[in-house]
């Protein structure tokens, strides 16, 4: 009973936060669209000449059609799949690597810290496009290159955040107390320090999701990422730019779709920050 009410209150707290609510609703729309893409549109994403080429938006073709008469709306919502899946993969990889390195650097300090932070600084200092470029130089364009390069580009932010939280948590008495209660280092890291990093990390994860979506789109746009015929958003926009003089809808509508998705994560991130970040909580205490 009591616990039920507690969970209730927690859910209510999240629902009461407007930014979080808007963000998660927007995201829900995108997830539903991408999951049920085949049910929502009757066309295949690579089906050519389902209608006349370069047809402006209409009742049948919501976002119009491209040069080969493919339905843009279908392509865009199939693009959502690619985008969300790759962003999720990138974020998880970044999270795993970044957090682990951050924990090691922050907890053990000394030489390990020096070494990890130098490496992290270097990845941080290279513009992410440059990292993408280097990866493409080595192993050619493709989804895997996108994942590798964006993971390399974004894991440092997790490391930095984890490390800074660990450094402040490590100095708190409860970590010293844990040592006195006989906890092993692994236990201290995973039971005492990591749970206290989570709120900051979750906020960061939602931000990295949005960065990953943007990054994937940009790399694909440059031709370093996902290649046609896969309907990645970057690819769509790349193909559409040639028609921007006469068929601006081909550029604007898919672009708005990206903005919508990224915005959902940014809204969620902001909401989570208000809910979880102790610096914001303090304002009301």
């Amino acid at each position, binding site marked *: 009973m009591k*616990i039920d009410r507690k969970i209730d209150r927690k859910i209510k707290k999240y629902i009461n936060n407007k930014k979080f609510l808007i963000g998660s609703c927007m995201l829900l729309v995108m997830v539903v669209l991408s999951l049920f893409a085949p049910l929502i549109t009757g066309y295949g994403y690579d089906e050519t000449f389902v209608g006349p080429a370069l047809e402006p938006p209409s009742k049948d073709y919501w976002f119009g059609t491209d040069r080969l008469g493919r339905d843009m709306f279908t392509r865009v919502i199939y693009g959502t799949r690619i985008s969300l899946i790759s962003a999720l993969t990138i974020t998880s990889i970044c999270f795993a690597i970044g957090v682990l390195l951050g924990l090691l650097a922050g907890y053990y300090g000394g030489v390990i810290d020096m070494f990890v932070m130098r490496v992290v600084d270097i990845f941080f200092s290279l513009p992410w496009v440059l990292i993408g470029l280097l990866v493409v130089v080595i192993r050619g364009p493709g989804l895997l290159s996108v994942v590798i390069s964006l993971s390399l580009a974004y894991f440092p932010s997790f490391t930095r955040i984890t490390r800074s939280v660990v450094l402040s948590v490590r100095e*708190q*008495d409860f970590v010293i*107390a844990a040592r006195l*209660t*006989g906890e092993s280092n692994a236990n201290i890291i995973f*039971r005492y320090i990591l*749970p206290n990093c989570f709120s900051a990390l979750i906020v960061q994860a939602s931000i990295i999701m949005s960065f990953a979506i943007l990054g994937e789109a940009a790399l694909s746009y440059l031709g370093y990422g996902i290649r046609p015929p896969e309907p990645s958003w970057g690819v769509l926009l790349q193909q559409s730019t040639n028609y921007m003089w006469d068929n601006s809808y081909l550029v604007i509508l898919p672009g708005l779709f990206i903005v919508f998705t990224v915005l959902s994560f940014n809204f969620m991130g902001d909401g989570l920050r208000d809910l979880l970040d102790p610096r914001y909580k303090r304002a009301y205490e």
Partner: protein
Amino acid sequence: MSESMNQPIHDPILSIKNLTVVYKDTLFSLKKSRFSRPAVDGVSLDVPHRGTIGIVGESGCGKSTIAKSILMMTEPCGGEILFNGTGLDSWRRNRLAYYSKVQMIWQDPFSSINPKMRIQEIISRPLHNFFHLSSDEIAQRLHATIRKVGLTEDHLVMYPHELSGGGRQRVTIARALISEPILLIADEPTSALDVSIQAQILNLLKELKQDMALSMVFISHNISVVEFLCDSICVMYMGRIVESAPREVLVKDHRHWYTTLLFESLPNGPRPKERKFKVDLGELAVCEKGCSFAPRCIRAEKLCFESSPDLVEIGPDHFCACHFHA
């Protein structure tokens, strides 16, 4: 290991001999090292079995460093610490056994417990780590301990943020006592609490000390709290013990001028009192050679700036480090 655990209790239970601790700068630290002054400088004290020693001093006098050294959290530069007749160097090889016998309570009940753990886990973790007990035994000891410190079963499933400061401090006390230690180190356990809660915690500690046959090192900046709880009191100034005596003696007949200053500084209610000291700190000067208190002392003479006084016995169990203690 079992040898040392089953040893009869040695009296004094803890004995610190000539302890010196110097904090070194880390290799890449930004700050230039200003002080090479040791944080603790040749401190010796004994904690008798079932006795309570109070350490009083102002911030930076090294009292917390002593606690850290006893708990093996800093490496002393010199001197030794014997617990139950065995040196800490041998205990270092067997930390778990040591920590099951020596426990600590912290100043800030908000930072000394993990906010992401339930109270029952916080309190019972030491049992999991120190002993191989069945879950029934653990539950039994858990319930016995929380009753001792005045918590209820309802508290067990809560998270720390649902408790007030006093409640949290009870949790830390329970965590420290669940492994049934024989020595408890308390580092300012009440200074973050409100006065009415402080009284409750002090009463609790006093009762527990009796019931569980605890020896205790109690560290505080507040003399009246120390007086309430301790059998004998050490006064520290800049890393050294300047005066130590049994409680009554120290309160009635303190000889060191720093002790006098501490007593004079205490607010004492509306009763106007003739004061021996006009406290004016000026800048806290550091005296390199002589008595470290000399720059602030009204009795300081040339001798005080030139040679540092030793801690000498001036009465039964009454030690004082002052050239002019008479």
